């Protein structure tokens, strides 16, 4: 009768390097009535840091929107091109039928001229209509999940940018078709897109909130979009002199759309002062709109 040996001694196992561990304490979340009461630099820095942490969400949502839009449609990506192409064709017909006259002498083929205007305008219009619906369309998310919800607005803009990028490829096709070379300044286009996106985003952040509360805004945006396009030199060359010409340049989109053509065809900015004004305006409006979004969303979320 001997006592059994139940113990087991293990030799040290080989050295293993474990995945790196950082000290990331989760921040404390405080919810109170004046949660976004603090005005100032800090609030923006915090909001921006939160946005940075949510970049993975942004990427996923953009992909989701694009895939969701094109996966169950026949034309797929073609839709991104159809609208500007159709508009170009209509205007070419109108000119051929001598119903309209572009007036000034164009240095580029008329179709190219029209397309270079419609493409950025389409970006702007898509930004407006999509951001307007962004919160309402994801009411479940807005209402139930805590994440930086401006990402929904950003994702709407991202989807519009994707269409724009597809349209740019076609623009290159147009250039090739007409045997025309863009000027080197075309490389500066991204800067211009940035200004335009900042401007659209500022409007989008506000209207997405307002549309959450008042659904009339969807129709209003449609109507205003049309009027705005007519007041913007999209299908015509902006007049430089005339009784009300200066008024046209107060519209921030006018210098931006004109600048697209300038960068593509001319190589010089024909109206630098209004463009600088539009840029400044966008940069001032964007943080203000962002802050409005933050402050108003907890109030409006319950009515979405």
């Amino acid at each position, binding site marked *: *009768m*001997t*006592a*059994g040996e*139940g*113990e*087991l*001694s293990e*030799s*040290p*196992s*080989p*050295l*293993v*390097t*474990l*995945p*790196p*561990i*950082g*000290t*990331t*304490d*989760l921040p*404390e*979340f*405080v*919810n*109170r*009535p004046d*949660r976004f*009461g603090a*005005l100032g630099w800090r609030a923006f820095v915090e909001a921006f840091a939160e946005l940075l942490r949510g970049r*993975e*969400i942004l990427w*996923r949502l953009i992909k*989701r929107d694009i*895939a*969701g839009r094109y*996966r*169950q449609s026949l034309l797929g990506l073609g839709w991104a091109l159809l609208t500007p192409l159709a508009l170009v064709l209509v205007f070419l017909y109108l000119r051929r039928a001598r119903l309209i006259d572009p007036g000034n002498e164009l240095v580029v083929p008329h179709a190219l001229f029209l397309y270079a205007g419609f493409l950025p305008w389409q970006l702007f219009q898509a930004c407006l209509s999509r951001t307007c619906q962004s919160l309402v369309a994801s009411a*479940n*998310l807005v209402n*139930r*999940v*805590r*994440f930086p919800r401006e990402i929904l607005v950003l994702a709407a803009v991202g989807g519009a940018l994707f269409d724009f990028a597809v349209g740019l490829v076609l623009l290159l096709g147009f250039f090739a078709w007409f045997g025309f070379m863009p000027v080197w300044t075309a490389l500066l286009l991204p800067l211009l897109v940035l200004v335009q996106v900042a401007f659209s985003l500022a409007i989008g952040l506000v209207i997405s*909130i307002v549309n959450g*509360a*008042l659904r009339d805004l969807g129709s209003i945006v449609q109507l205003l979009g049309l009027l705005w396009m007519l007041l913007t030199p999209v299908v015509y060359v902006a007049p430089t002199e005339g009784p009300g010409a200066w008024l046209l340049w107060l519209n921030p989109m006018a210098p931006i759309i004109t600048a697209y053509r300038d960068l593509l065809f001319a190589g010089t900015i024909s109206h630098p002062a209004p463009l600088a004004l539009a840029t400044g305006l966008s940069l001032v409006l964007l943080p203000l709109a962002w802050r*409005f979004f933050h*402050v*108003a*969303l*907890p*109030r*409006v*979320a*319950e*009515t979405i």
Partner: protein
Amino acid sequence: MDETPSSAWYVRADGLWKRYCRTLRRSTLLALGDGVRQFCGLGPPRPSLRTDEFWSVRDVSFSLAAGQSLALLGRNGAGKSTILRMLSGVIAPDCGELRVRGRLVSLMVVGAGFHPVLTGRENVFIYGSLLGLSRRQIDERLPEMLEFAEIEGFLDTPVKYYSTGMYMRLAFSVASFADPQVFLLDEVLAVGDQAFREKCVAHLQQLKADGCALLIVSHSPGYVRRLADFGLWLERGQPVAYGPIDDVLDAYMARHEPRGEDPDQPRPVSATTSVTVPVSTPPPPPSDDDGQAAADAPPVAEAARLQLLDVGEAPLALTSGAVARLRVAVSLRNKLVEPRLDVSLRNEQGAGLAGVILPLGSSTDGGASCVLDFDLRCFTTAGPAVLRLQLLDRGEGLVAETSHSCEVSGVATSRWQADLTAEVELVAVTGDAAAPPTPAPAAVISDDGDRPLDRADRRLERIEAGDEVEVAVDVCPIEARPGRWQLLDAADGVVYEHDLGLVPAGRAAVRGRFRAWLPGGSYRQIVVIGDAPEPSVWRGGWCHVGDHGEPIGHAALAAGVSTAFVEPGGRHGDAIQLLSLTVDGESEELATLLGGVAGPRLVADLGRGDVPTVPLALGERCRMRLRLGLRPGLRSLEIVLGFTRADGHRSGGLRIRRDCLPRRWSELDAEIDLRVALAPGEYALALAVSGLTREGDSVHEHRAEVARCHVLGPAGLEGDAAMAVLDVREEPGGELVVGTEAQSYLGAFRLNGVDASVGPAVLAAPDVELTVDVCGVRQIAKPELKFSFVTPGLHLVGRAVRLSDRFPSAPLAAGARRRCVLRFRPELVGGAYLFQLALQEVGNGSVHVLDRRPTAIRCVVPIRGASRGRALLEGSVCVDPWQASTHP
């Protein structure tokens, strides 16, 4: 012991108010208006009701610590979801404050963020990123999630073809594998099928056990009872009751159960209710618009009368923690709609201490009168208070009001934490007088820290080894919780623990007796109320154990064990007799304790006094000798030894069968080598013998308690695990009986040679050596160790690391110990951490935690110098938040 983090709570709500508007158009305009107003820097709008608005949530407070769960109860529209939405941060309260610490995951609408055209897999990635998971984390967890959701075959199907149940499965799996530290669930379990719901409940319980705080809204009482610790019952946004789930749920069910009386019927006149509502320190109470309130409120003077009965003019005497039964007479003059009596106890500053809302029925005629009995309990500091009674009509109209001054006596308890006060008194029942006075050692007088000694510290209890001692503990916990009285040695190891059972809420005196099988020396007494992770610990005075008492062991045995035997002639007689029982142990510790007696620790023979007690040490090898007297004519014999806990739970034992053919009265010696694998505590050792005669007649089994075993745990080994088995090398024919509720132990462990109970360990070198002893109580088929580093604020640093491929995962036999030495390299930045270790078992797809160390080793990682390659063994300065010290 003292380094419990100050911020133990994970969720805390203080006086939440939230209003909503009844009409849609006005609500949108108000919301926009508020938004613009706040944008202009005018601050949040005044918390008062405007036209068409009502309070959806009013004055709700609660708190929730890690590992706790709270259920929100109430009918539809009671404000439960509003609270969850405020918690998740999507809407802001109008008044009050909410704090959440830790990763919050809310699962409120199943499939929020799912896009119908995308496949299940794509949606998992979207939903996971919304919950804060990175792509890599989702990739890692995807197999687990899918295995849990059981929808592998449909993973690449667009989710528009999913059924609601499949949506729910997928959403629940993603959310619950997103490492939630605070998990909000709003009625999502209602969707799945029964089997999956059971799986979810089990998973949620596991999450809770891992330290996740749960907030549940469910209308299924069964799940609520199984998942929640606490309940908060809301009626029209107002808390009616808040407390342990069973109490609250019972009260709620009694009110809303269909088979009960119609809730709209008037209550019986002498109804008694005993729900206690801890009322928060109220925010400035939001008032209705003045004009409207004036219009609504009927004239106060003549409408009704309230009178507190059985109380004279003198201040009402209340004791903190005690239940006071009060009676109030209500007589109404006018007809009232849904009248209710709002009773609140407030202190001098106007802060609410306790309150009850007593509904009087749907409508009451004028001239009616009734007497209401109710119970009130408060937890507060001693001092004056005011009991206010308000009779309210529907629409908050105040009908009548009266107040009475009170005087609260008792002990201080905080509102949220079971802040503990205790008095411990030890009374030696036996043996005290014989002991010569022992001079108190110096250690008793001076505490090790510079903390001033309070009264309790000065008290010196002196007992002698082997004394039977009565311990009287006077505690005042805020709610009924299990309690323990413990003796700690100099290294804060628990050397003795006495279970006080479930200590009732309020002031309670608990008594218990134990025999002090302790080596001489000084011990610290502590009283622990509640369980991990948030026990309330009260450090009491010292207890000095002298070593002049009666030697332990060599005690006499009580009733003999005999077995009736019917002889062929019809005469009765003893067939088998237990003649003696001896236990020899190997434990040197216990040998010292016994005064150097190395011989038999327990000798028991028939016909003498009490049941002897034998001290045993956990893990000790000992030899038990039984001497039996046998009657001639027996063919076989069966001996069953059983260890039973004080609560009657069978912990384990041994069965031995023997063939024998004694021709005459003879004696049989049976020797059993066993290793003690019983959880520390008291056990009754019962012996049952039975046999068969040559003729095949059975000899009736006779069972008797032959000894009591007192199992001492080695320092550092927690005594709360319920485990028991004997690892036995028994005679041929023996059979091992394993207890059913067997668990396992994680033994003491060392980091870089530093014991877990001593600490802190300094992880100066890049590599760390971890030495763990694991003691399997039942067989563990696939053991696994998991460890994690935790910051002082209880945040997990990085993720928990499983050692499945490093810890030898061979089956661990019952009762066997395994020592495991692991070397690894934690990439930690400089700082102080808690090191948590858990023993798990992997079994058919799920992982069960068998044991974890709640008090873990503290380790300090030196701040790295400029050269990374050099091991900073010497001269590194460590910052230890508990005791700032410089390690050489």
